[in-house]
């Protein structure tokens, strides 16, 4: 069977499974629609959270970025897992005790103010929409390869499928579907990694393979990779940091607190039966997430090695990387390259007209590499590989069997769809429940509330799809921006709501607005206002990364500091919260007396 047919079969079968489950578990009441009636056990909930969490950014994009960045890519690994420790300890159990099922509801009640809840909705919508733009980019990549179309067409098709999929069921439908999606995506990630690790190092466990020696030699894989990439003018793989140590530090922090502040993740912890379950649920989620996150660095390093080994035969055989015959002839390039060229995400251009592919860093600051490239008559890098295709192309690069390639396509689609669905749930509940029912039309019927939710989903899909056509960066980078926004606006407000009895509504509202504003200002200066191309205003802030060399993706941690500071100053200047609110905070701090979540006020 040829590759295309196998891919259709595997992807089709996985979709049939998800849709089947969604129909079987269709949500009835609004409470089931949003929070599955508070009845999902911790291990199941952990698995669903993991599927929800591991988006196109984690599955498709992250390993590719790590392959590009090397050691510095560790900020994604630490940032997107370390936040669970914060979530488990600082937020989840208390929010579960609080017993409401959306974040704006908590903020509105705790800060006794509809304005606070409205500001929280604005923060939530900004973060979630940015996140979905990143997802749409990933969906586009996955569909373009899967259907052999351009990545723009991929996004259009993806939009339609995400829409059908998300309006189908509510949280309960999604929870069980996501368990199935988790299983598909984790198999899809690990199976090729095992094959590749076995090929390269003889060790089937990728986490150990990455630390092993190459098959048939006593040189460690990472040492060999370091040598090859340094010689070709790239940064040393195991030490190249992300910008600067300071930038890596705040970037990691920003992702961690963003994780703890992202509404679609927090919502998950409202669906467990007890406070104690909310604590361990985060641990289960992290175990399932770690399966992918500890495999990703192996995928990254091995894919990078394999990519170089494919176009430069001296990488595997040893010898001079700059010898003319080491670079492969363009006409002999493998089929997978031709397949990806169609999507426009991999490009080959014969700069020096010798009919061979030279893949190196032509902007290197390493004089030795530069001298060698000049001496060999290389006239510039001839191969551009979009970082977002590394994971999907990985099994093809390693020449693995067709069913593995098909499985990876199914996994990538599962990852993108499950997260998009979770985010759309968060958006629709924020709009229909917190905004329409909570503020504009308190006596709306249950049916109309669901309808408002579905309409807001549709709008979110169209907007994010449009912006996804001109994404502000690679999928994982765009998603990192969303984390920065959540980190700077929602996390500090929730945290102060629990840990500071005296924090009042003025402080919280001012803090959220200040954090959100300063972060968006810095991000939009780099990426354009609302990510629309050509509206960036870098000169106004003194050039790119002008704030201590911090990149816009990393700025969320700074925004969070501003949020805390502004909140405390304003809090000191205004009167303290009423007695019953302080009593409520005390009640939230003890587990006893937790009720099943309810939606009614």
């Amino acid at each position, binding site marked *: 069977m040829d590759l295309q047919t196998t891919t259709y079969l595997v992807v089709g079968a996985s979709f049939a499974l998800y849709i089947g489950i969604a129909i079987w578990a269709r949500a009835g009441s609004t409470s089931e629609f949003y929070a599955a009636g508070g009845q999902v056990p911790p291990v199941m909930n952990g698995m669903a959270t993991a599927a929800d969490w591991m988006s196109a950014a984690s599955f498709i994009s992250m390993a590719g970025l790590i392959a590009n960045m090397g050691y510095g890519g*560790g900020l994604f*690994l630490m940032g997107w897992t370390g936040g669970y*420790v914060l979530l488990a300890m600082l937020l989840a159990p208390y929010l579960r005790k609080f017993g409401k099922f959306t974040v704006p509801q908590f903020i509105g009640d705790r800060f006794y103010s509809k304005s606070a809840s409205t500001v929280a909705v604005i923060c939530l919508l900004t973060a979630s929409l940015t996140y979905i733009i990143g997802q749409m980019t990933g969906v586009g990549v996955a569909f373009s390869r899967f259907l052999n179309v351009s990545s723009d067409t991929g996004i259009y098709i993806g939009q339609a499928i995400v829409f059908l999929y998300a309006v189908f069921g509510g949280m309960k439908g999604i929870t069980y579907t996501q368990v199935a999606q988790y299983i598909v995506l984790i198999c899809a990630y690990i199976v090729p990694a095992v094959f590749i690790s076995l090929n390269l190092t003889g060790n089937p466990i990728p986490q150990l393979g990455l630390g*092993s020696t190459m098959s048939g030699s006593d040189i460690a894989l990472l040492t060999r990779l370091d040598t090859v990439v340094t010689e070709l003018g790239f940064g040393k793989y195991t030490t190249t940091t992300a910008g600067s*140590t300071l930038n890596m*530090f705040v970037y990691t922090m920003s992702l961690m607190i963003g994780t703890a502040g992202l509404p679609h993740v927090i919502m998950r912890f409202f669906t467990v039966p007890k406070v104690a379950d909310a604590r361990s649920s985060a641990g289960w989620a992290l175990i399932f997430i770690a399966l992918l996150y500890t495999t990703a660095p192996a995928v990254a390093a091995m894919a990078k090695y394999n990519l170089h080994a494919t176009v430069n035969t001296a990488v595997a055989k040893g010898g001079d990387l700059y010898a003319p015959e080491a670079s492969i002839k363009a006409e002999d390039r493998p089929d997978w390259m031709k397949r990806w060229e169609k999507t426009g995400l991999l490009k080959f251009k014969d700069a020096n007209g010798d009919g061979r592919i030279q893949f190196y860093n032509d902007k290197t600051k390493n004089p030795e590499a530069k001298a060698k490239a000049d001496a060999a008559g290389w006239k510039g890098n001839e191969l551009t590989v979009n970082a977002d295709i590394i994971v999907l192309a990985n099994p093809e690069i390693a020449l693995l069997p067709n069913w593995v390639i098909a499985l990876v396509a199914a996994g990538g689609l599962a990852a993108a769809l499950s997260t998009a669905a979770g985010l759309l749930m968060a958006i629709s509940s924020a709009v229909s429940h917190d905004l329409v029912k909570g503020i504009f039309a308190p006596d709306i019927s249950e049916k109309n509330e669901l309808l408002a939710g579905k309409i807001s989903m549709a709008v979110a899909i169209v907007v994010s799809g449009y912006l996804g056509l001109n994404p502000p960066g690679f999928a994982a980078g765009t998603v990192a921006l969303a984390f920065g926004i959540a980190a700077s606006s929602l996390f500090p407000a929730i945290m102060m709501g629990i840990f500071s009895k005296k924090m009042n509504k003025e402080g919280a509202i001012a803090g959220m607005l200040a954090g959100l504003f300063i972060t968006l200002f810095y991000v939009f200066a780099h990426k354009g206002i609302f990510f629309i191309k050509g509206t960036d205003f870098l000169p106004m802030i003194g050039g790119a990364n002008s704030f201590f060399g911090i990149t816009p993706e990393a700025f969320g941690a700074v925004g969070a500091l501003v949020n805390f500071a502004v909140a405390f100053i304003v809090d000191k200047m205004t009167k303290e919260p009423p007695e019953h609110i302080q009593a409520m905070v005390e009640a939230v701090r003890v587990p006893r007396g937790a009720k099943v979540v309810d939606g009614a006020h």
Partner: protein
Amino acid sequence: MNDQGAAYWSATLRLLGGILAVWFICSFGAGILFADALNSIKLGGYPLGFWFAHQGSIYIFIALIFIYAKLMGDLDRKFDVHEE
């Protein structure tokens, strides 16, 4: 808040502080600030600082959450505030 409640809350904060310290030292410490220094030590084929950033901190995070859940459960029972 009564004395019992205040004691429970300060015990909780102490526990959180301890866990956050470990959390910080292994990720931001070993994985970022001291990664260069640790890289001179090898763990198999891994330089140690690189290992912390790409593998080690994740394993430690998982352990931390379960340790927290266990100790917190003990605290709840000690102060008799657990769920029935």
